[in-house]
């Protein structure tokens, strides 16, 4: 029966790595976009204060609310990270079960 656990493990790591290599830039892009949007939002708030559209109390409140907005944007990125980890783990498990099935058929 052909079941080389060392080789299977190598293939599992490779499968998980392929998934993470594909998903990694998506997560990085998500985090980058979240901070870029936050920068734009803070600039907009500063501009509104400079133009007298909001007062100092509003300014403080708006900045506090932006903490929540950034948190929400990063939570969405966290979901993408979890999905990537899930896909990677399942790709590895798929390799493992495939190897087992092949070994089973060879009996």
């Amino acid at each position, binding site marked *: 029966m052909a079941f080389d656990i060392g080789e299977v493990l190598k293939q599992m790591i490779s499968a998980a790595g392929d998934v993470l290599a594909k998903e990694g830039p998506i997560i990085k892009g998500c985090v980058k976009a979240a901070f870029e949007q936050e920068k734009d939002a803070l600039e907009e708030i500063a501009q509104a204060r400079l133009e007298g*559209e909001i007062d100092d109390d509003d300014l403080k409140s708006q900045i506090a609310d932006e903490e929540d907005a950034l948190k*929400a944007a990063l939570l969405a990125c966290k979901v993408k990270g979890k999905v990537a980890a*899930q896909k990677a783990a399942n790709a590895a498990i798929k390799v493992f*079960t495939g190897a087992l099935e092949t070994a089973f058929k060879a009996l």
Partner: protein
Amino acid sequence: MRASTAVPQRVLALILSLIVAVATTGCAVKLVADYDNAAFEEILAVGKKVDKFYGTLLETKADERPYAKFSDDYVSIETDIRSMLLRNQARALNSESTQISEIILKLMTKYKDRHKTRNTYTDGNARLDRNRFTRLFASAASAEEAKKLDTDDKDAEKDSK
């Protein structure tokens, strides 16, 4: 001689078949909730309603924005956001989407209370708050959309926790 080797092979086959059964049905990793199209559509619908609210408010003259004029809209929007939150809370492995809904509800309640206290809503705050809600609902939609998996990934995660 042949019989003595056949027995261990049968045992091995049995063990392997058990491992395969476990690996294929019970060991797949699941870290996030399944994609819920109804939840996604609800995010878009509530987001649109909030955006329309701010559009109407900004179209109203600044000195004609008493709280009473908008209280019904606040009640309706708050109910919709609570429904969104409840749907997210009811789903396992869904803490991030739940937290995003909580943030949306927290901010909407805050702005409603501010409107009630001041009995007006300035252009500056309305414009900034409207843009923030646009981003918040986009985050909620993005989080839900991320849960949409390929067929292969779905197969791999069946019956798992």
